[in-house]
């Protein structure tokens, strides 16, 4: 896989990971406590873990053997996948916090 493709895949995995850890930490307080105890603040923990996930996943995808030629269409499709992942993750977070703030008793 080319470096750029690996980085885009890494970003997709990171956005999904962040969305999952944000929601899970809100619903499962031991995870939030773990983040606070380990990283001083849960928000710092999420940010640092996001960076680690991005670096590791990009590195792993970069190791997948394939042609190193840059395929414009493949890159374009992966950029669109990142775009849709971001929009979907944003909507999931919006609905989650809307539910938590206005609907949940």
């Amino acid at each position, binding site marked *: 896989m080319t470096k750029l493709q690996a980085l885009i895949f890494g970003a997709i995995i990171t956005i999904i990971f962040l969305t999952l850890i944000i929601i899970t930490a809100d619903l499962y307080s031991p995870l939030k406590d773990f983040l606070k105890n380990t990283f001083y603040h849960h928000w710092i923990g999420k940010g640092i873990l996001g960076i680690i996930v991005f670096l590791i996943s990009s590195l792993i995808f970069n190791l997948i053997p394939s042609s190193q030629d840059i395929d*414009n269409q493949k890159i374009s499709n992966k*950029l669109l996948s990142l775009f849709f992942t971001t929009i979907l993750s944003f909507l999931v977070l919006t609905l989650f916090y809307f539910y938590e703030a206005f609907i949940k008793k």
Partner: protein
Amino acid sequence: MSPLLVFFLSSHIFLGIIAIAFFFSVTMNLLKREVNLFSLKRNSFGGLLAFILSWLTGGYYYVFYYGDSVKPIIKQGLYSWAHNFIMELKEHIFLYLPFLAFIVFIASYLMQDKLKENENLRKSLAMLSLTIFILGLLIAFMGIIISGAVKK
């Protein structure tokens, strides 16, 4: 609030606006028939740098001041939803932006001439850059709402 916190909060807002402006410029550049590669690389790098610095300065304010001094005032006031919904959403969406900005920056550097030749590639990168711009703008408006909720 200490002068250092005032500096960090002001820097967070200022750098965030700068980053949004950079990504507006990147988006408009990518939508042109003729992409200016120098401007694309410079502005995507500027936007990335501004987002990272805004992340750090805003993070310092959020971690060391907001939670203890601002959040209780909002939660006890008439507009507790400004924290429970707006701030929770804002602080977490903000985590996405540096990663997205990094991809736009690195794609601008690595693709260069291919961006000039391929319209689909340009449009895909423009969509991502536009998303950064819109999310950044949304986060800025959320900041205004949160500030308003503290004063009431």
